[in-house]
């Protein structure tokens, strides 16, 4: 593990008008690591991810990416975004493009690769996710799990420094969810750095030893799910992670 984190978030605050969504979040993510952020709906999980690539502008605080403060004016936001692979909740594939074009578009238009080169690289990524056979299909012809794989291939094709997942299993059935967990573990073994936001306990348990619990815009706890469910002082934390809630 490197001495300095790939992503370093300090005292991150994000407000939408009067409403404070993130209220002083700290988080470190090292290269090769996978971190899971959990919390109830509206706790600011998705906003946290969107601050990383400036889809949402932080109100204050610091985000360092490879040591650079990316909240500073003059940051090349488009270059930043190209180095953060984003996998969306509903997969957000471009519906007018085939699977192959979905994955190769960024390579061609952002990296300037020729079509043949871009398609070769895209096919490699699709192959890695066992989707190469679906290259000529359109998103509407794919199942949820297949769309998810294409979305991941699209993110990986750009060789990002980190891949972030926004609720990767919320649109999938339990069987598919387990497959996603296996897939994320495989990517982790291959050295992909990942940050995953979810409220799927099974997924979290399967992919990470520890989770970060976000509540009302703050990191309330960071520990293993078992310990958070049993031993944490805050009843809200126990209630979230406990299988039958807080009965105290």
């Amino acid at each position, binding site marked *: 593990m490197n001495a300095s984190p790939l992503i370093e978030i300090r005292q991150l605050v994000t407000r939408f008008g009067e409403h404070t969504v993130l209220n002083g979040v700290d988080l470190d993510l090292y290269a090769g690591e996978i971190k899971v952020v959990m919390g109830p709906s509206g706790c600011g999980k998705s906003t946290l991810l969107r601050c990383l690539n400036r889809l949402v502008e932080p109100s204050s605080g610091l985000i360092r990416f490879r040591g650079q403060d990316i909240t500073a004016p003059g940051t090349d936001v488009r270059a930043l975004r190209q180095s953060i692979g984003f996998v*969306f909740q509903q997969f957000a594939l471009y519906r007018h493009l085939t699977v192959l074009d979905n994955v190769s578009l960024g390579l061609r*238009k952002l990296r300037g690769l020729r079509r043949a080169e871009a398609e070769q690289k895209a096919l490699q990524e699709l192959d890695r996710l066992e989707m190469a056979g679906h290259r000529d299909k359109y998103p509407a012809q794919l199942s949820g799990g297949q769309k998810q794989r294409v979305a991941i291939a699209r993110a990986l094709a750009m060789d990002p420094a980190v891949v972030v997942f926004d609720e990767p299993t919320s649109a999938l059935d339990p069987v598919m969810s387990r497959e996603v967990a296996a897939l994320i573990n495989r990517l982790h073994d291959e050295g992909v750095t990942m940050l995953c936001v979810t409220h799927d306990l099974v997924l979290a348990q399967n992919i990470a030893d520890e989770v970060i619990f976000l509540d009302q815009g703050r990191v309330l706890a960071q520990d293993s799910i078992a310990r958070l469910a049993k031993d944490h002082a805050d009843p809200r934390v126990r209630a979230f992670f406990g299988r039958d809630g807080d009965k105290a």
Partner: protein
Amino acid sequence: MTAWQSFAGDLLEQWPLLATGLRQTLMLTITVSLTGFLGGVLVFYLGLSPRRWLRGLINGYISFLIGMPLIVLLFLMYYGLPQWGIRLTPFAVAVLGFTLNVAAYNAAYLRTAYNGLDAAELEAASAQGFGHGQRFRLIILPQVLRLSVPALTNQVILNLKDSTLAFLIQYTEFFARVQELASTNFQFFKAYLLAAVVYLALVSVVVVAARALERRLILPGSLH
């Protein structure tokens, strides 16, 4: 000689003039359908600008032109502008007036389709690092155009029918020639029936072409 025979005789005699009129009608319709389409895409694009003042200006443009009868715009330019020393040919006025009007309508159709797009796809494009223009060209426009084929081709039909207005600014298109035909033999019913049949035939061509275009552009597995 029956009335039909005399009408047929006049028709044959005036046919060269009617054909010229038909050519003028087609020329105007095709020209303004193209310029109105391109103008519509441009207006739609500018309406998505991150600059608030530009969006306001474009919204104003669309509201103003949709709110104003086309004939008023045509008269304003054809009869009004010469008072300021600006004289344009009937064809130039017609092309300019129709283009301004049709572009506003087309932009409104495109905007409607845009409002129905999946916001997550647009966010995904931004997240990938695409700039404003790339997002428009690569993600928004191909989807919006596809969704708008029925509305845009319908506008071509409207353009064809509205081209009859141009004779009021001295542009001698097909309908103007039919009027001349009617006034030479006073067979109004037959003459205007002829006009109706010709316009219907032209519209049918557009409809068939539109359907073919829609079939070509349909995405596998989708309802659109």
